[in-house]
């Protein structure tokens, strides 16, 4: 048990350290999300009233695309210098590696969200009419939903011919319930029209189901040649 | 009577889709047969 924890912590620390030094993922994610925000604001040009209705969708689409950029990079780093092969050959169990990657991705995307949210508020003149604190569980659960499956599918896509397009192709259909939940929850909180409770429960269920599925099946994906 | 066009379109579309799939399978089969003949020839 404690070995797993140590492995997770070590791998996570390594990823954070690498990312902090190069800032590869965070820079490309940030720039991409910013572009999406700007282009959307040209495309939609909403008044304050309308913006509350569509902001939920826009924000999560921007984060989704940015997350895909990060997810594509996470495993690519392991392929260089055969780090992944080294891990497979070692007696270490597969799950700590997965958790570390997923947690790392979660931190990066969360950081992105923290940086981008003020921009969204400014561009769209947003103000939450419903309970704003509920946005935190929505963001946390929603991000984990994207990241846990994204990390898994990114590992799957490693062994395909067109890696970069395979990840979104696999991720988006499976994420539809989670996306629906995130967007609607955000919209409900911003407009204050309905409760986001059901959606948060759905996100929670989605997270539990797929985290377990990823942990159970990751070994297969890791050991695929 | 305009709605009859939709009925015809739906039935036609169904068979176009199925026949397209069958032709894809057939073409793959021909290619495979050719490969087998090549292998046998060696």
């Amino acid at each position, binding site marked *: 048990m404690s070995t797993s924890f140590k492995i997770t912590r070590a791998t996570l620390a390594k990823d954070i350290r690498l990312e902090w030094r190069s800032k590869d993922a965070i820079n490309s994610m940030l720039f991409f999300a910013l572009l999406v925000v700007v282009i959307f604001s040209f495309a939609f040009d909403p008044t304050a009233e309308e913006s509350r209705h569509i902001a939920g969708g826009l924000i999560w689409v921007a984060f989704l695309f940015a997350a895909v950029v990060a997810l594509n990079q996470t495993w690519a780093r392991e392929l260089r210098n055969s780090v992944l092969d080294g891990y497979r050959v070692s007696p270490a169990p597969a799950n700590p590696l997965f958790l570390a990657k997923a947690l790392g991705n979660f931190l990066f995307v969360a950081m992105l969200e923290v940086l981008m949210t003020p921009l969204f508020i400014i561009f769209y003149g947003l103000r939450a009419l419903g309970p704003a604190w509920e946005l935190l569980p929505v963001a946390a659960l929603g991000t984990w939903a994207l990241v846990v499956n994204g990390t898994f599918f990114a590992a799957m896509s490693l062994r395909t011919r067109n890696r970069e397009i395979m990840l979104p192709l696999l991720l988006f259909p499976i994420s539809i*319930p989670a996306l629906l939940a995130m967007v609607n929850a955000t919209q409900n909180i911003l407009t204050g029209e309905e409760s986001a409770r059901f959606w948060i429960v759905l996100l929670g269920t989605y997270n539990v189901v797929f985290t377990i599925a990823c942990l159970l099946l990751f070994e*297969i*994906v890791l050991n695929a040649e | 009577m305009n709605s009859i066009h939709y009925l015809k*379109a739906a*039935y036609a579309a169904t068979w176009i889709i199925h026949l397209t799939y069958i032709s894809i399978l057939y073409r793959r089969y021909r290619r495979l047969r050719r490969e087998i003949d090549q292998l046998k020839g060696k």
Partner: protein
Amino acid sequence: MKRAFLILAVLSIALLGFATYEGLFVAPTEQTMGDVQRIFYYHVPSAWTAFLLFFLNFIASVLYLIRGNDFADRFAKWIAVLVGVAGCIAAFAIKPMPYGIEPSSVATTALAITGIYFLIRKYFPDERTDVLALVAAEVGVVFCTVVLVTGPLWARPVWGIWWTWDIRLTSTLVLWLIYVSYLALRRFSTSGQTPSIAAALAVFGALDVPLVYFSIWIFRTQHPQPVIGGGGSIDPRMLHILLINWLAFLSFAALLCWARYQLEILHRKVEETHALEALLEPEGKR
């Protein structure tokens, strides 16, 4: 073998011809929708067939993942038996059934699940499980495409809209998307363990479907939308013809699956031969 295939082909074509004729000319005209409603005789059986095929893929994927693992194998066998037993008990114990579901269909479905599990396990061992999974997914996508094309063609003249985000349409679309991505993974994967990876994806897809259902249910509770396709009882003459069409499409699906299956087996044998050749080529001959 060849003979059985030909018999099935003739039977399928005959059934399809008969069923189509019945659907187009014999079935009574619907009161409110008119003749356009006859699309229903193609749309609904295709949907049922697609779902059945996707379910076959799911069972085959699970079987592929657990093969060789004794514990998982025994566990899965017990679950399969349990589903059958539970279905039969529920059919008799729960009265009345919610949503107007027939008790007999619950029992039949549960027993069918158990039956399908053990039949696939027995007659499609090892690699053949994977071939079955691939075949079921591919033919399933073909039928699902038919559903997604005929659906809007029915909706437009009758309800005035091409599409709506109701539960059945949306879950069918998501299922289609998941399985297209499944087929893409199969095609573009360079791994030797593609069958296992694809099987894992199929399991993910299966886990996703109830969540999609639930999410659309919440969505519609909060945003009521036009009800498409209604529930309610169906004229027994129409039901009769619907079932005939389903039988016809099922036998056609079986035909397609059989053909695709043989094709895949042949393809794999050729691949193996190529691989062997490459191995056995004498060193100097390069």
